[in-house]
């Protein structure tokens, strides 16, 4: 019996366990396996294999089951009550990459849009692919302003890891030499269309605000390494959310998991819900994780010297809060009581739209899966950009395009048909992405009275934006209108469509990095202060949100932490 148990334990023991297979789980798996560790990746959802499990990737418009691929209202309301709040994400082409909300309940003390997918690759399949670096403006802000806690790292600590990640994932972009938006290792930028070029010239000339093409994780000139992984150049289909059969945008499935698999050191176990970390009082560390097999209902344990939590900010918080022991009665590594607090996102849904006169004889070819980017221009540290009404800042994403056949044209018959067969007027749209400050009482808590279908506790959300964000939103609308006016656009509508936390789908902050174990959960290397063999490198680690899309920073933190973990393990510290 003892022998059998020993053998079972040996079979379930790895050098490292990675919880989650999304953008950071995949990255952790790649880095750890490449450094020779035997790695088990645990994914709560189903297996999704690159290309073969993208069932709608080649579906033509006329092959859609429903008009424009929109799901029937009854199905939306039954299964996607939360996921449909984005207004765009869930269609017949993408529904298999989003959770069914009726099977994944949570409680909203205040409205929170938790948009997610449970499957191998996670949201790295459905992400927006915009890829930006944080700057020292971001890393220093908390300390300078006395908000939250200080980041335990600075830009210089992360810069080489940004380089490393960008080189691997492939980022298309234009170097601009802006201190608030550091340049990176870029593949050739995508092109702006005629109207965007004119907008850039007007706004840069009249308002001094830089306009650049979006930096996005798409291959425009694949490297040898990327080609060897089976990835290819972006084909301008703009069907990314369905999964890319060309592997042209970065996802775990197309890139990191492929690289990890090729080392021979990777084992992926899908349908494996990690319910808790196991604390070993003798060793004073985490000995492994407890897993509920989603298909068999069996509970099992897996063991490893190093554990990476990459389940996404909120699910990682859930695992920690659900991992109670004598050592950690309030949740794993949570003596600071910071786990689940400081929930941040990027607030959006405010900007401007306008009609562009002229350019009727110009068009474009191909569907660019990217837009323009307007880097932050407020509160940059100089007097000219300083605002009295809010701290921090925002950037805009958007662009120009001609209206299509689904625009309103009156009448019926041959004239209307002919009109709709031609492109409509040029429209221009920009929407802001604003920084949300870390507020200790913006938090998720474990709800033991509402259980999911596995009988597991759920989360309760109590998150809201405050005065700083509200003041920023007013400026986001006004500054957007100002730019469209400067460009000479007409029928400008600027405004705030409203925003609920979560809608940015950039959840972060629930197990923040910091210098002091009393006020933070992770140290400068993403190790838990209270349990050094547990690393957390998903959005939970973020000490502040900045205003740029965060995935690149998560990946850079992951790569840096993985190197640290392997070194520490080699030195016998873990």
């Amino acid at each position, binding site marked *: 019996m003892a022998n059998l148990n020993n053998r079972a334990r040996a079979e379930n023991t790895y050098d490292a366990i990675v919880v989650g297979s999304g953008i950071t789980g995949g990255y952790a798996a790649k880095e750890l396996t490449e450094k020779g560790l035997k790695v088990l990746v645990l994914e709560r959802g189903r297996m999704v294999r690159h290309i073969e499990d993208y069932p709608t990737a080649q579906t033509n418009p006329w092959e859609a089951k429903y*008009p424009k691929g929109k799901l029937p209202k009854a199905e939306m309301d039954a299964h996607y009550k939360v996921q449909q709040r984005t207004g765009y994400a869930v269609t017949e082409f993408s529904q298999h990459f989003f959770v069914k909300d009726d099977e994944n309940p949570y409680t909203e003390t205040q409205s929170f849009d938790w948009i997610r997918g449970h499957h191998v690759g996670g949201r790295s399949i459905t992400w927006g692919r915009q890829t930006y670096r944080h700057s020292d403006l971001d890393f220093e802000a908390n300390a300078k302003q006395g908000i939250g806690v200080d980041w335990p790292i600075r830009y210089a600590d992360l810069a080489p890891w940004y380089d490393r990640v960008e080189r691997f994932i492939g980022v298309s972009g234009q170097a601009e030499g802006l201190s608030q938006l550091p340049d990176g290792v870029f593949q050739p930028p995508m092109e702006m269309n005629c109207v965007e070029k004119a907008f850039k010239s007007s706004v840069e000339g009249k308002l001094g605000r830089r306009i650049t093409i979006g930096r996005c994780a798409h291959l425009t000139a694949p490297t040898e390494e990327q080609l060897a992984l089976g990835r290819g150049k972006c084909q*301008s289909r703009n069907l990314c959310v369905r999964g890319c059969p060309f592997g042209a945008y970065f996802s775990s499935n197309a890139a990191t998991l492929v690289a990890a698999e090729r080392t021979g050191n990777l084992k992926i176990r899908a349908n494996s819900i990690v319910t808790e970390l196991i604390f070993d009082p003798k060793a004073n560390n985490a000995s492994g994780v407890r897993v509920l097999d989603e298909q068999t209902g069996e509970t099992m344990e897996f063991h490893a010297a190093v554990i990476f939590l990459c389940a996404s900010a909120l699910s990682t918080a859930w695992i920690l809060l659900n991992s109670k022991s004598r050592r950690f009665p309030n949740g794993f590594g949570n003596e600071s009581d910071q786990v689940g607090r400081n929930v941040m996102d990027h607030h959006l849904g405010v900007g401007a739209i306008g009609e562009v006169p002229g350019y009727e004889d110009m*068009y*474009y*070819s191909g*569907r660019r899966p990217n837009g323009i980017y307007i880097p932050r221009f407020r509160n940059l540290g100089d007097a000219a950009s300083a605002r009295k009404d809010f701290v921090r800042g925002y950037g805009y994403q958007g662009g120009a395009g001609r209206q299509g056949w689904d625009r309103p044209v009156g*009448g019926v018959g041959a004239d209307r*048909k002919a009109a709709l067969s031609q492109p409509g007027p040029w429209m221009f749209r920009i929407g802001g992405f604003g920084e949300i400050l870390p507020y200790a009482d913006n938090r998720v808590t474990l709800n033991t009275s509402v259980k999911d279908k596995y009988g597991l506790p759920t989360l309760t959300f109590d998150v809201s934006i405050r005065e700083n964000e509200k003041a920023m939103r007013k400026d986001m609308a006004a500054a957007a209108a100002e730019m469209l006016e400067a460009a000479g656009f007409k029928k400008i509508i600027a405004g705030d469509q409203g925003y609920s936390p979560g809608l940015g789908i950039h959840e972060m902050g629930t197990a923040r990095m910091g210098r002091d174990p009393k006020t933070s959960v992770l140290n400068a290397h993403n190790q838990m202060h209270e349990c050094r063999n547990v690393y957390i490198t998903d959005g939970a680690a973020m000490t502040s949100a900045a205003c740029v899309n965060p995935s690149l920073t998560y990946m850079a933190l992951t790569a840096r932490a993985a190197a640290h973990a392997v070194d520490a393990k080699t030195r016998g510290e873990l």
Partner: protein
Amino acid sequence: MLNRRDAALSFGALWTALVLPAGARAQTTPPLGWTPKAVTADQARTLDAVAEIMIPATSTPGARAAGVPQFVDRALATWCTPADAAALKAGLDQIDTDARASGGAAFAALPAAQQAALVSRYDADGKAFWRQLKELVTTGYFTSEPGATIALRYDPVPGDYRGCVPLKDIGRGWATS
């Protein structure tokens, strides 16, 4: 994907039939050639006639050749809310009732001029059922293979993106964005 030239050929006979000058005589009701799932045979004939008036065959195929009536029928069967579907079907019945009252025949059998007069009236009134029907017909047409590849331009795998191209080099609107 259907080759553009093949599509043009396969729909050619239908356009020829449809671009013949519309007489003032009552039309013989064409056989449907498909089995409705959501609507009755009478409603299907009305739908077929209305769809073709909304998006007629011109130098490119019309709604009928693009299978739009079937598209609308399928949407009514599987996609619309029950209330919307009921309203739209009642609307089709109303069209027939109005046709009989004003012209003494089912809508599909009315002379083209009388059909056009009724359609202008519905379009001016802009009732909910009409707006929804028009939207479904428009979507059905421009997402159909002939609509997307002949009336519009469709390129499933563009390869490069070019930001500033003269419209005359493209010729038509893109089917997808």
